[in-house]
Each structure stands twice: as structure tokens, then as C-alpha cells.
């Protein structure tokens, strides 16, 4: 087994195992930490796919920002008597059928498809992709979507502050 394959198997085992532990853990803080572990292992998958910038962004955004934010909210809203039930009243049979059939359909589709690189891009197969290249693509070719995404972040920030302020929340 080549090192490449070994790394893939270890990382994907980490992603799937911590995803499953995220589903079944009773303590909500443990669930959040398992979620973080799944995302960090995904960052390793990104490194293996020659996307170092995305791996760094994944760690910065998810580990640095989102998980800390979620842990703050968990601690703000933690209940006095910790509920041990993990799943809601929908039960687990229906969701399990949905998830398993989705995976089965995707596996069937993937196993019947053949993927070939675009004819214009076969030259890049073994080429090392650099962050500089990605930056050129992002700021030259995709400048307008980039600006729109920045504006979307601003809108989300303002809206989150407005909602969380909860003006007139005692009117319930």
C-alpha cells in the first residue's frame, strides 16, 4: 500500500468515525468537538488533493471561528438538566432510510460513471498547483463573484447582530 493510499484511508476513517461519533454522542459539547475533528481530517484530505490554501482556510474558518462561536452559543444556552436523549421525536428509522438510500444512489451513480479531465486541461494533471495561481484566478477571472461574496458576508454580519440583539423579544 502506497503512502498516498494509507493517508487517504486514515483520513477518511477519521472523517467518517468522528462523523458517526458526532451523531451518537450524548453530550452536546462532545458532539461539537467530534464535528471539529471531522472538519480537521477533511483539511487533511484537502492537502492530499493538492489544495493547501483550502486546507488552511478550512482550519482557520472552521476550527478558528465557527467551532469557537458554536461553543460560546452552547455555553450560553446550556440547560440546567442535561437532556440525555439525542434524537428527536421523528425517530431514527426515517432519517436512516433517507441517508442510506442517498448513499446507495450516489455509490451506484459514481460506480457507473467515467471521469476524464477536460481536453484543454490535461497538461495540468501532474503540475503543482500554487496558491499564487489560485489568487490570480480568484482576483482576475472571478473578481465580481468575490466582491459579491464579500458583500454577502457584510449583510450576514449586520443581520446576525440585529437578530441577536432581539429588539422587543419580551413581547412573546
Amino acid at each position, binding site marked *: 500500500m502506497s503512502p498516498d493510499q494509507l493517508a487517504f484511508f486514515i483520513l477518511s476513517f477519521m472523517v467518517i468515525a468522528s462523523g458517526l461519533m458526532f451523531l451518537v454522542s450524548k453530550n452536546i459539547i462532545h458532539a461539537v468537538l467530534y464535528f471539529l475533528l471531522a*472538519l480537521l481530517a477533511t483539511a487533511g484530505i484537502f492537502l492530499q488533493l493538492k489544495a493547501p490554501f483550502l486546507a488552511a*482556510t478550512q482550519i482557520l474558518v472552521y476550527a478558528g471561528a465557527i467551532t469557537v462561536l458554536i461553543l460560546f452559543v452552547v455555553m450560553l444556552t446550556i440547560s440546567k438538566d442535561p437532556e440525555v436523549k439525542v434524537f428527536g421525536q421523528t425517530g431514527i428509522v426515517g432519517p436512516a432510510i433517507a441517508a442510506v438510500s442517498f448513499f446507495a444512489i450516489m455509490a451506484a451513480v459514481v460506480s457507473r460513471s467515467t471521469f476524464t479531465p477536460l481536453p484543454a486541461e490535461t497538461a495540468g494533471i501532474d503540475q503543482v498547483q500554487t496558491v499564487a495561481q489560485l489568487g490570480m484566478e480568484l482576483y482576475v477571472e472571478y473578481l465580481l463573484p468575490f466582491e459579491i461574496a464579500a458583500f454577502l458576508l457584510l449583510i*450576514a454580519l449586520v443581520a446576525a447582530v440585529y437578530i441577536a440583539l432581539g429588539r422587543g*423579544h419580551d413581547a412573546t
Partner: protein
Amino acid sequence: MPLESYLLLGAAVFAIGLFGALSKKSAILILLSVELMLNAVNINLIAFSNFITPLTMKGQIFSIFVIVVAACEVGLGLAIVLMLYRRRQTLEVDKYNLLKG
């Protein structure tokens, strides 16, 4: 590794997220399950980027925007979760049954 194994990993992570979003009791964990599904999409996009368009890296560009939208979604979602908690003193989605009639 071939492209197919990455796609299967993405499908498995998406299925885990789907199961969590449909079955979890806590509103915060439902939000996290949706994040897991977005993350599965990112795995697929970057795998396609690496195998189909290795020169222009279109998938990587797209997944940057997916991460931006995921960050927006978490920010707004947590604000809504805080507001819900302030109104009902609980985060269990089963308790939000005001519209049941």
C-alpha cells in the same frame, strides 16, 4: 487515489450530515449537520477540481464561495438559535410546536 474514492467519501459524509439534520433533537446540532453536508460538497468540488480541471482550479474557487456561504449561514443560524432560546428557554426542536393547532 482515484477520483471515485473521494466521491464516495463525500457521499458518506453527506449521508451522515443528512441523517443528523433529520434526526437530531438540538437546534445547534441540526445546524452543525448542515455544515457537515456543505463540507461533503467541498470534498467533491476539490476532488473534481484536482481531477477534471487541474489547470484552472475551478472547483477550488467554487469551494471558497461555499465556505463563505457556510460562514454566513452559521452566523445567522446561531443568532436565530439565541433568539429562539431567549423566547422559549429551550433548544429542543420538538418543543417548538406552536403551529400545531
